[in-house]
C-alpha cells in the first residue's frame, strides 16, 4: 500500500493554554490520495478543528500531521476550502470571486496576468461543471444561497488543489438544494479526483459522497469507528433508498448515538 496522502497520528489539540478546552485527543486517521473521506460526529466534537489542523492553519498541541509526504508546520498551500457560509466577496463578480485563489497562490499569481484568458476559460469551465454557466458576470447577492455555495465550491477548486477540505458546505441549504449539490460535488470529484475530507453532521450526505466514513467521538474528539462505502458510482438519489445505503446510515447513526452518550463502542 502506498503512503497515505494525509496522515494524522495521535494528534491532540487544546485551546487557550494548559487548562483550555481539549478539542481533540489521541485522534488518528489516514486518507489515501484521491480518496473521498467524510468525517461525522456529534456537534462540538472537534470536526472543524481537524480541518484547521490538516490545512496547517493551527498547530497541533501533540502528535503529527503529515500531508503529501511532509509534516505540516504552517499553512499548506495545496488546499482548497469551502465552509458552511459561502464567504464570497460581495464587491466582486462571480468570475472574479472564483479566480481569487489564483491571485494569492504562489504558483499562479505570477502567471495570472500573462495567461488571464486561459485562466478565465478555466473558471468558466468550472462554473459550467457546477451548473452556473452564464452567471459569471453577476454579483453574489444576485444569486440564491445554493448558487453562492456552488460558486464557493468553484473557488475551492480553481487552483486545482490536491486536497479539498469541506466544512459542512451544504448544511445551510434547504434539503432539495443540498441533494442537488451532492450530485454536483460527486460529478466534480469524479472528473477531478482530488483528495477530499468532508466534515458533516448529515449521515446521508456522508454515505452518498464518501468512499469511507469516519465517526468521531464527543469532545475530546477522536475517531471511534470507520465504515467503507462500496456503493457503485455515480450514486443518485435512488441509491439513498436502497437497503445497503439505509443499513449503512443506520449503522452510523448507532455509532453517533453511542458517541453522544460517551459509551465505548467496538467496531
Amino acid at each position, binding site marked *: 500500500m502506498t503512503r497515505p496522502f494525509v496522515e494524522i497520528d495521535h494528534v491532540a489539540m487544546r485551546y487557550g493554554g494548559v487548562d483550555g478546552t481539549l478539542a481533540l485527543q489521541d485522534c488518528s486517521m489516514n486518507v489515501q490520495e484521491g480518496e473521498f473521506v467524510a468525517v461525522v460526529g456529534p456537534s462540538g466534537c472537534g470536526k472543524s478543528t481537524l480541518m*484547521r489542523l490538516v490545512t496547517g492553519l493551527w498547530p497541533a498541541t501533540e502528535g503529527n500531521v503529515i500531508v503529501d509526504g511532509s509534516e505540516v508546520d504552517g*499553512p499548506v*498551500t495545496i488546499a482548497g*476550502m469551502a465552509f458552511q457560509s459561502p464567504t464570497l466577496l*460581495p464587491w466582486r463578480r462571480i468570475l472574479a470571486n472564483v479566480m*481569487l485563489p489564483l491571485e*494569492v497562490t504562489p504558483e499562479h499569481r505570477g502567471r495570472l496576468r500573462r495567461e488571464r484568458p486561459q485562466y478565465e476559460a478555466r473558471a468558466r469551465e468550472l462554473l459550467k461543471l457546477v451548473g452556473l454557466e452564464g452567471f459569471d458576470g453577476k454579483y453574489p447577492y444576485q444569486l440564491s444561497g445554493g448558487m453562492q455555495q456552488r460558486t464557493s465550491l468553484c473557488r475551492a477548486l480553481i487552483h486545482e488543489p490536491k486536497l479539498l477540505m469541506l466544512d459542512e458546505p451544504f448544511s445551510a441549504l434547504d434539503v432539495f438544494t443540498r441533494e442537488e449539490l451532492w450530485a454536483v460535488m460527486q460529478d466534480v470529484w469524479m472528473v477531478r479526483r482530488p483528495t477530499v475530507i468532508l466534515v458533516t453532521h448529515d449521515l446521508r450526505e456522508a454515505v452518498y459522497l464518501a468512499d469511507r466514513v469516519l465517526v468521531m467521538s464527543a469532545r475530546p474528539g477522536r475517531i471511534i469507528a470507520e465504515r467503507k462505502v462500496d456503493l457503485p458510482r455515480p450514486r443518485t438519489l435512488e441509491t439513498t433508498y436502497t437497503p445497503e445505503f439505509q443499513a449503512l446510515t443506520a449503522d452510523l447513526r448507532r455509532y453517533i448515538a453511542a458517541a453522544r452518550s460517551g459509551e465505548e463502542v467496538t467496531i
Partner: protein
Amino acid sequence: MAEMSARALARYQSMAAAARRQRRLEHWLPWIVIGGMFALWEIIVVAFGIAEFILPAPHDIVNSMIRWWRPLMQDSLVTLYCTLAGFGMAIVGGVLLGVAIGSSQMVYKGLYPLLIAFNSIPKVAVVPILIIWFGIGVWPPILTAFLISFFPIVVNVATGIATVEPELKDVLRALGAKPRDIIVKVGLPRAMPYFFASLKIAVTVAFVGAIIAESVAPNAGIGRLIMVASSRFDVPLVFAGLIITGFMGIVLYWIAEYIERRTTGWATRGQNQNLAAGG
C-alpha cells in the same frame, strides 16, 4: 403568463403612480424643509419685531452677503482650503493607521488607549499650542481640521478590516496568502463602506476644526470673519458666515456621498433592490 385583469392592472398602475409621487417628494423634500425654515424665520423676526443685532431676518443676511461678498468669498476660500488640506491629511493618516490597527492585535492593544485619550482632548485647547509651534497662519487651522477628522476615519477603517470573516481568512491563508494579500484583497475593499461612512462625518467636523482655529488665532478665514463681525455687532454678517459654512459642509458631504455610491454600491444594494422591485 395570463393577462392581468383590468382591476389588477388599475391597482398596479395606481401603486406605481404613488411610488413615483413619493420618490419625487423625497427628492425635493430637503429643499422644501430648508426653504420652509427660512420662511418661518423671516415671519417670526418680522412678526415679533426682533432687533437685527439679536436675530437678523434672512433678507438682512442676504443683503449682508451681497454687500460683503468679496471678503466672504475670500475668507470662505481660505477656510475651504484649510479644511480640505487637513481633511486630506486625515484621510492619508487615518487609512494608514486604521489598516495597522485593524490588522494587528498588537498595534490595536498598544495604540488604542492613547488614541482614545487623544481624541478626548477638546481640540480648541490644542490650538494655542499649535500657534506657539507654527505661528499664526494657515497651519493651525489645517492641523486642527486634521486632528478632529482623523479619529473617525481610523476607527472606521480599523473596524472594516478587523471584521473580515475568519473563514475567509482561512480560505486565503490555506492558499499561502501573506497577511498583506489578505488586507489588499479583502480587508481594504471590505473597509470601504466604513471608510466612506466616516468621510461623511469627518468632512463636516473638519470644518469645525478649521473654524475653531481661525477664531482662536484670527488670521484669515470664516472664523476670523465671524470674530471681526461680532466684535462690530454686525450680526447679519456673522450669520452670513455661518450659512456659507453650512453650505460648504453640505457640498462636501454630497461629494463624499456621490463617490460612495459610485464605488461601494454593493454594500447598499439591498435598498436599491427594494426600490427597483417596488413595481
